[in-house]
C-alpha cells in the first residue's frame, strides 16, 4: 500500500504542496520584514507626523499578535468577499499571513530599536545628524541585526502556520496530505507521518540558522 500512496503522482502533489507552503511563508516574511520595520519606526520614532499613528500601530500589533491565524484567514476571506473584492484564495491567505507577520516583525524590530542605548542616538545627534539620519545610518542597521534571530524563529513558525490555509482550500503541504487521505483513508498514519517529515526537513535547517545567528550576535 505504501508504494501506492507514495507513487510519483502523489509525491508530486506533496511537492506542489510544499512549494505553496514556501511561497506563502516567504511572501509573508518579506511583507512582515518590510512593513514591520516601517511600523516599528512609526511606533518608536518621536516625529510629530507620527503622533496619531503611534497608538494605532500599538493597537494593531497588540490585536494581531493575539489573534489565531485561522480566524484571521477566515475573517480576511469573508471580509474581502463582503467588500466585493474578488481575489483568489491564495491572495486571501497571503493577505492574512502578512497581517500577522507584520505585527510580529514590528514587535521584533521595535524591541531591537529600543534595546539600543540612548547613547547611540546621542552620538548621532552630537555629530549634527538629523533624527532621520541617525535612525537610518546608526539605529536601524543595528536594530535590524538584533531582530534577525527572533525573526528566523518567527519564519519557522510561519512555515508551520501556513498549514492553516487548508481551511480555504489552498493546496499547501498539509492539504496535500488531506487530499491523499481521501484517496487512501487507511494510510493516514503514513501520509501524515510523511507530511511531518517534510515540514521537519524544511524547518529544522532554520533552527540551525537561528542558533547560528544568535551565537554570532552574542559574540559581537
Amino acid at each position, binding site marked *: 500500500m505504501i508504494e501506492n500512496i507514495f507513487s510519483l503522482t502523489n509525491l508530486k502533489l506533496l511537492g506542489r504542496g510544499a512549494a505553496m507552503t514556501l511561497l506563502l511563508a516567504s511572501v509573508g516574511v518579506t511583507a512582515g520584514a518590510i512593513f514591520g520595520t516601517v511600523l516599528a519606526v512609526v511606533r518608536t520614532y518621536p516625529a510629530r507626523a507620527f503622533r496619531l499613528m503611534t497608538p494605532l500601530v500599538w493597537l494593531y500589533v497588540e490585536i494581531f499578535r493575539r489573534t489565531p491565524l485561522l480566524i484571521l484567514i477566515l475573517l480576511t476571506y469573508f471580509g474581502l468577499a463582503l467588500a466585493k473584492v474578488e481575489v483568489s484564495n491564495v491572495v486571501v491567505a497571503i493577505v492574512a499571513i502578512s497581517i500577522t507577520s507584520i505585527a510580529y516583525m514590528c514587535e521584533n524590530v521595535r524591541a531591537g530599536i529600543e534595546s539600543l542605548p540612548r547613547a547611540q542616538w546621542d*552620538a548621532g545627534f552630537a555629530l549634527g545628524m538629523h533624527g532621520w539620519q541617525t535612525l537610518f545610518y546608526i539605529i536601524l542597521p543595528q536594530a535590524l541585526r538584533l531582530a534577525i534571530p527572533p525573526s528566523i524563529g518567527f519564519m519557522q513558525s510561519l512555515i508551520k502556520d501556513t498549514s492553516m490555509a487548508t481551511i480555504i482550500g489552498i493546496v499547501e503541504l498539509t492539504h496535500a496530505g488531506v487530499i491523499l487521505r481521501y484517496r487512501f483513508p487507511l494510510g493516514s498514519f503514513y501520509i501524515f507521518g510523511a507530511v511531518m517529515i517534510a515540514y521537519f526537513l524544511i524547518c529544522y535547517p532554520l533552527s540551525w540558522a537561528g542558533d547560528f545567528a544568535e551565537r554570532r550576535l552574542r559574540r559581537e
Partner: protein
Amino acid sequence: MTGENEAILRLEGITKSFGKLVVLKGIDLAVRKGEVVALIGPSGSGKSTCLRCINGLEVPDSGRVYFRGRQVNFTNRHERREIRKHIGIVFQSYNLFPHMTVEENITIGPRKVLGEERGEALRRAHELLEKFGLADKARAMPDQLSGGQQQRVAIIRALAMKPEILLLDEVTSALDPELTREVLNLITQLAAEGLTMVLVSHEMAFVRRTAVRVAFMEAGRIVLEGPVNEVLNTDNERVRRFLVALEG
C-alpha cells in the same frame, strides 16, 4: 583688537531640571578661543548636564548660550543641528557605532552632515588617524580595539567635523590607568595646537597640566572659577575638601 580675548562661548544663567530634580541652578561661564576650561566637582554636581547644554543634547530650561557672540536658540531644531557642526562632544562611553569600521565611524559625520565627498573625508580621516598613531586600525571594527583606542577614535570622530570647540565628558573615567594616559596625551596635544576645549575630568594632575581655567561645581552651581593654579591652590573649604578626597 580684542578679538583674540573675546569669549567664543558664553553661558548665562543656565538652569536645568529633570522632573523635580534641579540639576543646574544658574551657570555662568565664559570660554575664550584657544582656552582649555576644566569643570571639576563631585558626582551629581551637574557637570555633564552643563556640558550637554552647550551643544543642545539637553535644552536648558532658562538662561542663554552665546556662541561667537550670537545667542543660540536650542528649542529650534535647525539651530541645534547647526551648532553641533561647530561644537563637538566626546562621551565617557565612547559611543562608537559598533556596526561600522573605524574609518566609517570617522567619515560618516563629515559625509552626511557636512556634505563632504567620500574621498576627501577618507583622506582627512586617515590624516588624523596617522597623526594620532592609529593608522593601522582604519578598517578595524570597534570591538577589536582597546578602550583607550576606542576613545581616541571617538575623539578623532569629533575632530573630523572640524569643530571650533570640543567638549569632553569624563572621557577617561571608563578606562584603566594605562589606557587613560594615551587618551590624556592626545588631549594635551590638541590643547597645544590651540583647540578650544571644555572638559569634565577627575584627573587632577592632567587638569593641572593642561587646563587654563578651572570651574569647580557643586550642587548645580559654579562655586569657584578662575585660572587653574588659583582654583587648585585655593583656600576655599569646599574645593579643598573635594581635592583632598580626590588626590588622597
